[in-house]
């Protein structure tokens, strides 16, 4: 199991880019933190998710 935005999710052993696409995230429109460190978009396709990883996936929303 991994944690995505605070909730448990299946994803250990997957490539991050595949995980994002399969779960309906647009890789071009998000930023990702893995275990507290920012992962640049260019590394989504080479980063394998490990058991216990914590991801924060963020996007822009309306705001002042």
């Amino acid at each position, binding site marked *: 199991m991994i944690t995505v935005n605070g909730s448990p999710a299946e994803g250990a052993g997957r490539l991050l880019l595949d995980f994002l696409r399969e779960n309906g*995230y647009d890789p071009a429109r998000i930023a990702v933190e893995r275990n507290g460190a920012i992962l640049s978009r260019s590394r989504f396709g080479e980063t394998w998710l490990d058991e216990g990883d914590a991801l*924060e996936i*963020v996007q822009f*929303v*309306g*705001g*002042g």
Partner: protein
Amino acid sequence: MKTRETDKLILGGREFTSRFILGSGKYSLELIKAAVEQAGAQIITLALRRANPGGAANILDYIPEGVTLLPNTSGARNAGEAVRIARLAREVGCGDFVKLEIIRDSKYLLPDNAETIRATEILAKEGFLVMPYMYPDLNAARDLADAGAVSVMPLGAPIGSNKGLCTREFIRILIDEIDLPVIVDAGIGRPSQACEAMEMGAAAVMANTAIATASRIPQMAEAFGKAIEAGRSAYLAGLGRVLDQGASPSSPLTGFLQDAEGRE
């Protein structure tokens, strides 16, 4: 003399002809394009939040091309959290601007100037174009300038209050003393208040709630755009003087008609 053609707002070396920074919070994504266009806005603020999976509408699809994005750090309660949000926002890939806002107070939403100065130092060194939201305090504004901010954004009134330029005298001091664009942010509720800020010499006005809570959002965005332009023109024209007391006729005091008896 500055004319409308040569009068530019310069932020971090970028030039803008519009002096209206539009917020995108609290109204429908479908209205954003019309609001931006009606306002003539060239900069729009955004917030960063946890993404919802499943292909829900993304705000970036609703913002017209060529508009500069100004992500905010809303939700940050200290410098560390703001720096984290700013770095993530830049990672989404929409430029180096950041509207830095650090708020510990959940009732009045007042910015923490000391933490904001700390975060500005860090982010400016990392190449961010930092536009800090602040309480209008001269010493803090000087520290923000020294820390590398590209503008200061003093509040007119508490966020979302639509109360107007409650801090006008203190914003005046910043305009007088600070060598950066002073952009009035927060609390501006009506076009007339935005116009007044511009007449005082503010470099720009940011508004969100005033537009989001109007009955017709694009029309209110247009009204703000016009008011901000009018205020800027008035500032450049130089306001006429105010008499302490008495009056000063606007029409000649000679050449009056005589009455039937020949009296003037």
